[in-house]
């Protein structure tokens, strides 16, 4: 293999890892919310872009340090999610078949946020770029990679690991999985279901916001990312099994690599076609997903 091919291979690997980790984060956020309150959040892409835009405003607009900005963005998501939960999400907790109501609701939120972005940020610019977290370039053998992207990758993987441990071993994670499996049984065992619902909605959105701000730190972005991300996260959730965080992590990484590889050899549209095709097949033949227990 020639040197040029090796460099392409290496850049594909690094892009695949970063994209995969970010996809996995967002899909985990979506699947936590679906797994607990049964809400298929189609607005996840808009939340993702909202985080990226907040990060842009704080760093480029206010001149904050990108580390502080990233933490602030994730922090801001908590009160925002809580307000949204009180205003809209809470009303549906006891509705049977609420997933379709939530789905339509989140499409409405999507439309509102898309309209707001078009009026505000859309007028200023169509490409947004954040300052890097760290400067410099590391050479891994002969291959250069920006320290900034390595840092983003490290943070994303650390967040994924923390999330996985939280859901697997912490009391909250066990309660969340109990609620997902059987809400009534969980209530009987003393789990405060409504509290778990609020917590999960906030946690899920915080994870999506983290994905958004990390993506913005690693790559420049535009407003059309929102819809692509929404559909991709849905595809990951459906294929991995709605409610399965492990499924979201594994399928998210697979999708990241697919995106990186297909984008080099063909167009990103082909990658999107392949996700959507895979999602349709899973929906039709195994709606519980690959990783469902």
């Amino acid at each position, binding site marked *: 293999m020639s040197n040029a091919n090796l460099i392409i291979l290496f850049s594909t690997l690094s892009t695949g890892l970063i994209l995969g980790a970010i996809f996995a984060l967002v899909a985990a956020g979506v699947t936590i919310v679906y797994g607990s309150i049964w809400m298929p959040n189609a607005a996840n892409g808009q939340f993702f872009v909202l985080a990226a835009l907040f990060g842009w405003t704080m760093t480029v607009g206010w001149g904050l340090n990108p580390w502080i900005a990233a933490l602030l963005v994730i922090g801001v998501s908590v009160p925002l999610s809580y307000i949204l939960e009180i205003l809209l999400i809470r009303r549906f907790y006891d509705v049977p078949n609420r997933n379709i*109501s939530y789905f339509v609701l989140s499409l*409405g939120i999507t439309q509102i*946020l898309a309209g*707001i972005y*078009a009026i505000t940020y859309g007028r200023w610019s169509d490409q947004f770029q954040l300052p890097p977290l760290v400067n410099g370039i590391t050479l891994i053998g002969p291959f250069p990679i920006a320290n900034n992207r390595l840092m983003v990758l490290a943070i994303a993987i650390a967040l994924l690991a923390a999330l996985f441990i939280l859901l697997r071993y912490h009391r909250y994670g066990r309660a969340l999985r109990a609620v997902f499996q059987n809400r009534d049984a969980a209530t009987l065992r003393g789990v405060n279901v409504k509290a778990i619902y609020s917590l999960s909605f906030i946690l899920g959105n915080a994870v999506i916001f983290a994905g958004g701000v990390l993506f913005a730190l690693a790559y420049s972005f535009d407003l059309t990312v929102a819809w692509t991300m929404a559909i991709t996260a849905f595809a990951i959730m459906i294929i991995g099994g709605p409610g399965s965080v492990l499924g979201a992590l594994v399928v998210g990484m697979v999708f990241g690599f697919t995106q990186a590889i297909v984008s080099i050899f063909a167009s990103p549209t082909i990658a999107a076609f392949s996700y959507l095709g895979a999602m349709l097949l899973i929906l039709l033949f195994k709606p519980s997903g690959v990783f469902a227990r």
Partner: protein
Amino acid sequence: MTAQPTKDAPRGLAAHWPLAAFTVAAVLVPILLSGNRYLAFVAGMTLLHILWATGMNLLYGYTGLMPLMFAGLAGISAYFVVNLTSMGWSFWLALPVGTLAASIAGTILGLPSLRLKGFYFTLCSLVIQTVITLGFVYFASITNGDTGISQIPPPSIPGGGELTGLGYEIVIAVMAVIGIAVLMLIVRSSFGRRLAAIREDDGLAETLGINVTYQKLAAFFIGSLYAGVGGALYAPYIGFISPRSFDVLISMNIWLMVAFGGRGTIWGPVFGAMLLAPIPFLLQDYYTVKDILYGVLIIAVTILMPGGLASGFKRKAPKAEIAKDAPSRQLDQRSAA
């Protein structure tokens, strides 16, 4: 009016006066507005959306399926018509061909509804809509990609001349009236009652001897006809189409007209379209406000009918006259047989 779909239902003039009034209004409004070309155009677009909303109503209101690929089907028809007419076909030949293409596509893409229910079918249709939109962008040799096709020529009239302005609005008005009349016929027929039975409980409908597969696909075929006719008329009327003209937000907006006006009633979606369709044109200068306004309305509709999106009419029993009637009728027929 709790019309029993039986022999004692009001027939003749008494039953048809709303349709007659609508026909007169649909033709008169463009004529009265023809002094102001722009307002007449808004009236024409509203009539087009009434046609679309009526088709969506057949699927969402009467069959209980929420197809978010509805605008995509209209787009298929529109691209067919534009390409065929640019190849030298007459518009009047291209319209049925494009409509048929949309219907066949709609019937095939409706197949997942046989396996998936509620949210899962809606999600599936959202995926299909996204694939259709991506396809419109990707196959740029036919669709000219994101740039879209502009300066679509108006249809020629067989006697000579071109169909533009008021004439075009009258054609759309006639199509909208035909669409509503067809839906009224369907709702009164045993086919319509079978659809309502499927909407309420398709498992029960199956055990009552209704061929759910066949009925659902027939509903998709007919509902897609509305999308197809609307799409075919849309393209030369507005003179410009792009993948954005038929994306998921348009599907959502057509759905909103049905849900806002009242699904499963003939006239509710018509009023929904009358109220909502003109907004983007009248707010031309604040175009993006439309997205926010529609989004707020979508949320309002969802909050006002929390259980209604999935399971139909359990909270609004009085409106479900057909739904209540259908199973009992079917039972009667079976016990009599």
